[in-house]
């Protein structure tokens, strides 16, 4: 990442936010950053944040690419629920783990494909197109589980959400690995360039001979894949598929993480590292709420403030306006 010296700066904002939150927590709880080794694996609050944040990270990864093309995907939370539900039901029915996981991911990819079709082929606005699957997906998830919470007793499957690999929690490793793999794929192949070109100026990209429509369609497929994986991780984490609540409002968190991470909703240049930090920031915020004893119901308020601050920081109009204000104030 060091190559891109200029693009680091947007990542600094969420990074500052993250550091500020960590400091706040440290003041309130000196053991906040303490990591010990327990039963041969790392253990501590930061590890929890990583572990619980892993799903959000995976979602943010997919969402980053969708937003980079100037779109948005509201259906990820529902896709999570549907993929988790299908895998859980299949496991309970005694299908092989591979088949169950494959089916869950397959469903998610199909859902992403449907989104991509509506957006890229039929030219429907992303919000509307993905709203459809947001509604239908959750219904489908409940249909699959018959409205029940499906318990999963499968240690191998559980590993996806709770396992440890060489003493490190598996879920964040998986998420981190995905980020690295995605980064390598996007930056070592031309995929990243194609996505950024499509998002920056779709018409010019098409004129330069890129298949902009394909690019747009495929990012939704990838986003669906990420959502499916996140759904499986969520189910594995609690050894149960809760089609009713799983992934609820996660689409908003994912969009939020991406925007906080410095990728503009208008598309173009994307920052995987920024989305990574943004998603971590969000999970740290949640944990901070627990730490401070803030009732979860009031937790939305700090989120709202964060969104507003980030929006204003990113808007050139706002900066100009505040700049003018500051200048006037300075003169007076």
């Amino acid at each position: 990442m060091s190559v891109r010296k200029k693009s680091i700066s947007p990542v600094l904002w969420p990074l500052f936010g993250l550091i500020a939150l960590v400091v706040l927590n440290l003041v309130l709880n000196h053991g906040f950053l303490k990591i010990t080794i327990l039963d041969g694996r790392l253990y501590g609050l930061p590890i929890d944040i990583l572990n619980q944040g892993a799903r959000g990270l995976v979602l943010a990864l997919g969402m980053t690419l969708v937003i980079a093309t100037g779109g948005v995907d509201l259906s990820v939370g529902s896709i999570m629920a549907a993929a988790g539900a299908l895998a859980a039901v299949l496991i309970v029915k005694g299908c092989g783990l591979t088949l169950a996981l494959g089916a869950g991911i397959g469903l998610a990819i199909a859902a992403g494909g449907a989104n991509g079709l509506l957006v890229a082929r039929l030219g429907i606005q992303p919000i509307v197109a993905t709203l459809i699957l947001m509604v239908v997906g959750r219904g489908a998830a409940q249909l699959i589980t018959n409205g029940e919470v499906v318990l999963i007793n499968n240690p191998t499957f559980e590993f996806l959400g709770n396992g440890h690999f060489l003493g490190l929690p598996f879920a964040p490793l998986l998420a981190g690995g995905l980020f690295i793999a995605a980064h390598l794929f996007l930056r070592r192949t031309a995929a990243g360039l194609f996505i950024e070109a499509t998002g920056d100026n779709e018409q010019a990209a098409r004129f330069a001979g890129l298949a902009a429509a394909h690019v747009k369609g495929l990012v939704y497929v990838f986003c669906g894949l990420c959502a499916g994986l996140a759904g499986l991780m969520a189910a594995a984490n609690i050894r149960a598929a809760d089609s009713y609540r799983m992934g609820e409002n996660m689409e908003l968190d994912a969009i939020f993480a991406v925007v906080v991470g410095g990728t503009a909703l208008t598309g173009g240049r994307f920052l995987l590292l920024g989305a990574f930090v943004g998603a971590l920031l969000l999970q740290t915020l949640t944990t901070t709420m627990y730490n401070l004893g803030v009732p979860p119901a009031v937790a939305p308020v700090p989120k709202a403030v964060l969104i507003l601050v980030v929006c204003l920081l990113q808007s050139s109009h706002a900066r100009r306006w505040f700049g003018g204000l500051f200048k006037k104030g300075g003169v007076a």
Partner: protein
Amino acid sequence: MNEASPGPLLQLRGVGKRFPGVIALAGVDFTVRAAEIHALLGENGAGKSTLIKVLTGVYEASEGEISFEGRAVRPGSPKEAEELGISTVYQEVNLLPALSVAENLLLGRQPGLGGFINWGATKRHAREALLRLGLDLDVEAELGTLSVALQQMVAIARALDLNARLLILDEPTASLDEHEVAELFKVMRRLRDQGMGIVFVTHFLDQVYAVTDRITVLRNGTLVGEYLTADLPRLALVSKMIGREVNDIAGRSGELPAPDDAAPVIIESRGLTRRDALHPLDLTLRRGEVTGLAGLLGSGRTETARLLFGIDQADGGELKVRGEAVRMASAREAVRLGLAFCSEDRKSEGILPNLSVRENLILALQGKQGIWKTVTRVEQEALCAHYIAALRIKTPDAETPIKNLSGGNQQKVLLARWLATKPALIILDEPTRGIDIGARAEIEALIGRLRADGLAVLLISSEIEEIVRNSTRVVVLRERRRTADFQGHAIEPEALMRAMAGASPVNGGHS
């Protein structure tokens, strides 16, 4: 001047408009009298749009004075201009297709009390306003269901209904057919006879001669002159618009080889056509030749390029690349077949503003190679270094976002983007527009090198001298048709201009 006529309706003195780094308009005088149709002419970048925007309050003039009906005015918004009595019908119909005809006519000032609309009065008023133009339309129909010509008429009716004394028509005829144009002219003449001043912007010279009384020509943001239409021959007009007296135009470069009919054909079109864009066109582009595509704005130049490159799809005719028939379905396919296209609209069809020079430069090559076969970073940097040096692109480094470069340097990056794909044919649509003279010469030199290297080049330009200097063959388009072609020494500015202007013997006779 006619003694009976009162003072001028509108008078501009020394009006200029500067944007950061650009002078769009400098010291222009412009006078419109009541009861005349006044053509405002000039090629792209001449400053027509800027002048109109200053008049209608979209822009504020940086300098100069405007007086309307004898009073000094300075409209600050379209609304203020309308209140003064200056109404405008824009090139793109600036109405709302989803609303009804009546609403479009009266939006923002529907009759009624306290913000509530009296629909009966609205419809009646709209019907009357249209009847005044001789139109009997269903005013409740959605505007979008009408033909563009009728929409244009609604826009005119809206403008007139504002109690306008000066009507500005900004290229109202661009998408009208002959019959519709005739109807429009009837209305324009009627309005003139009622005492209205009309500014008519168009690029169809036939229309200028058909309907206008007076002509003002702009070029590069400055005034060329004001003429009585009847006194200005067509050829003279073209030369004024293009910016050279016929005799001034520099001759052909001596290096240009004679056209070679045996040279391999890269691309060949037979009867290529698209409704509302291009009449059936035959075109043959050969290796090692620069084919100039000349014609005034709106003659079908860019449309031809878009069809050849697969941006738009043809309704009919066939296209062969190296002898094989192809269905050019997308730009992607065109690139794969070894074509390249530098669009005239750099901003919306060329650059990726926030991406770096490097990324902009390798985009087409990478697109051609696909997602897996990447141009390595080393190759990318080598390509950048090569083209930055070869084309003398002025940029701090290859990682600078392209939006920070000047227009000329952006253009060179786009040229480099296409050259990097090693194309067999490159289409250059206005490659030197908005570029300073130094860069211009470099780009022209480059065109020569490309030809020498064996590329086929299709050069589209509104600058005749550019065509003359660089082309081995020239095809002239007028009104979306191929009207003439020239080879070798026959490529002469005057002949070209005649073909472009479609000069009738009467008008063109005495130059």
